[in-house]
């Protein structure tokens, strides 16, 4: 065999070995929900356009994912190239330079098309640190038939007093119909997401401008007393262990007159395959108390790139694809407009086809009614509607949530729960150096 032939065989073998390694592999950490799973199914479109990029998925339950990506990014583990994170993490991680800025996404991405409230929640010092995959607020979902039977009409923008009146009129405990279903399960993303947003509408706030906890204020007392009274009188039994899924089950099986929760639930409760009340659901804005703020939150599951990733350019291509207008059109063509990820782009809400989706208008109105930069009636030193964008918040709010959940379970009074919340928050904040 000549030297040339050997050299050619060697080169061919090397090419064969090196061939598969040419494809760049992206590891994407994501949560398990309908929109994310749909995206995984549609990624052939991305890999067809980018044959040199392979995708690997790590799908985890939301709280496990949050802990895993926090751990990985803090320790610079470099396990993920794209992370699914929320509006709580982005301001904190962006400020720490843990995320790659997305200011240089291509012009056809049309960053100005992102909804201002959502974009603002994902921007730190002028840098967009995450691209929103879907956005959500919270709103009132109610049974139109029960409301009619009660002789009431749900306004488009109800007050808390109306909600209480309607809950009383719709409750029929003998037939296991409860006027109102709200979150009671302890957790910063569970009952505290709801109660913090509700507190905003009652004029409550977590901290004053000096970072002093405010659970000893009249506004918090009014919030918690109203919530406990509403739930104890017209809520389902065992509500202190109800989160999103438990309330979704109750509503879908016809046991709730009203449910105030994430706008993303609208597609579930109106889906006739899973919901027994699909054709009887109406929507309204989250309630207010006449103080200028509504009790709705703002959240966006977003795609971000950790600063330790070795594949930043490929990751940017993926993030741009998954959050683009083209992706929206792709989902619409394959699965219909009702299944398009909501709440991220202005153009979606200008689309005549999407406008026909029954919950589209209320979703965008709810998102626009939330302002993460000015979430409360009185001024505060923090951003975030249903959270305070500081690293200590998740731990503190989970403890406070346990106190409030215990109050709902009847284990302590509202005054005791608030006193404990005040004390533990003050201790934690002092220990954190505030």
């Amino acid at each position, binding site marked *: 065999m000549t030297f040339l032939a050997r050299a050619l065989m060697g080169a061919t073998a090397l090419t064969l070995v090196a061939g598969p390694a040419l494809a760049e592999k992206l*590891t994407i*950490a994501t*949560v*398990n*929900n*309908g929109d994310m*799973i749909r995206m*995984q*199914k549609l990624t052939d479109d991305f890999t067809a356009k980018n044959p040199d990029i392979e995708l*690997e*998925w*790590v*799908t*985890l*339950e*939301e*709280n*496990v994912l949050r802990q*895993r990506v926090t*751990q990985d990014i803090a*320790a*610079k*583990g*470099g*396990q*993920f190239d794209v992370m699914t994170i929320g509006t709580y993490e982005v301001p904190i991680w962006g400020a720490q330079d843990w995320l790659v800025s997305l200011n240089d996404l291509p012009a056809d991405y049309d960053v100005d098309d992102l909804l201002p409230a959502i974009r603002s929640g994902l921007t730190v010092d002028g840098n967009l640190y995450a691209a929103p995959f879907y956005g959500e607020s919270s709103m009132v979902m109610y049974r139109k038939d029960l409301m009619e039977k009660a002789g009431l009409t749900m306004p488009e923008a109800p007050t808390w007093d109306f909600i209480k009146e309607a809950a009383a009129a719709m409750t029929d405990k003998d037939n296991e119909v409860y006027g109102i279903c709200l979150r009671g399960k302890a957790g910063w*993303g*569970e009952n505290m997401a709801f109660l913090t947003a509700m507190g905003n509408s009652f004029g409550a706030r977590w901290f004053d401008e000096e970072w002093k906890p405010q659970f000893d204020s009249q506004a918090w007392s009014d919030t918690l007393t109203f919530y406990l009274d509403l739930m104890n009188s017209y809520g389902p039994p065992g509500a202190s262990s109800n*989160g*999103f*899924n438990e309330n*979704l*089950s109750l509503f*879908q*099986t016809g*046991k709730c007159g009203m449910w105030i929760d*994430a706008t*993303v639930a609208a597609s*579930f409760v109106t889906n006739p*395959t*899973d*919901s*027994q009340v699909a054709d009887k659901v109406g929507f309204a804005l989250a309630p207010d108390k006449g103080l200028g703020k509504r009790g709705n939150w703002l959240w966006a599951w977003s795609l971000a790139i950790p600063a330790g990733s070795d594949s930043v350019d490929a990751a940017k291509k993926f993030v741009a694809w998954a959050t683009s207008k083209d992706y929206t059109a792709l989902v619409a063509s394959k699965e219909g407009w009702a299944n398009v990820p909501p709440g991220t782009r202005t153009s979606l809400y200008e689309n005549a086809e999407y406008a026909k989706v029954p919950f589209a208008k209320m979703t965008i109105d709810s998102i626009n009614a939330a302002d993460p930069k000015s979430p409360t009636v009185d001024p505060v030193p923090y951003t975030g509607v249903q959270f305070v964008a500081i690293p200590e918040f998740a731990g503190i709010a989970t403890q406070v949530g346990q106190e409030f959940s215990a109050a709902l379970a009847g284990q302590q009074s509202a005054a005791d729960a608030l006193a404990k919340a005040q004390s533990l928050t003050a201790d934690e904040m002092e220990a954190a150096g505030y």
Partner: protein
Amino acid sequence: MARRVSTRRKAITTLAAWSVGFLIFFPILWTVLTSFKTEAQAIADPPLFLGFDWTLENYAVVQERSDYLRFLWNSVIIAGGSTLLGTMVAIPAAWAMAFVPGKKTKDILLWMLSTKMLPAVGVLYPIYLIFIQLGLLDSRIGLVVVLMLCNLPIIVWMLYTYFKEIPGEILEAARMDGATLREEILYVLTPMAVPGIASTILLNIILAWNEAFWTLNLTAAKAAPLTAFIASYSSPEGLFYAKLSAASTLAIAPILILGWFSQKQLVRGLTFGAVK
């Protein structure tokens, strides 16, 4: 002389044993039943026990969405590897403690057990950093080592208990016949302790198979075992109970089958030495 037991008493005892067994098994049965329901049937109130339209839809969805065999293979390697490695280390250790005890043997045994008293999360960060330095994150070999270390105290304790039941004189006789230490452990001690070793191996495979803390924290895509497979179907925002049940059923099926076929050995090993 054996005590006479009346038929009535026997029937009551049997019924009680079956009731307790059914109670313990019920969550698994319910998971399996739910895996054959639609999502709407899974949340029906009152709950549906058997009277529902059985469907394989959830299994089809799980198969379509996840590469089950990859997760299964990782579980087999991690659980099998850690148990094998742990047993290889534990047999000589337990032999030494059982047959050549020193002044501090009891203290060492207690110290080993005390490592199980520390919550795993207490050492998560140091181990995570070590794994980053050694390039072991998301690797099967890393998990084999960690799970071996986690279960080693249990393996040593179990083997020590079994070895203590074996008369030392038999080993002495082997030594007098000229057996080396290796031969003594391999050809005399091990065959006599087979039921104990078998049950120790089986129990540790089950423990390693079900381990969810380290397997979720130290893996991402490549080395993720069936615990990560189950976790990917859990969601606080969306009803995935039927799909989650299908994923759980697929994850526990192999270990359930293994346990079913080896139950004789398990029971024999766990009751080894109970009657003298």
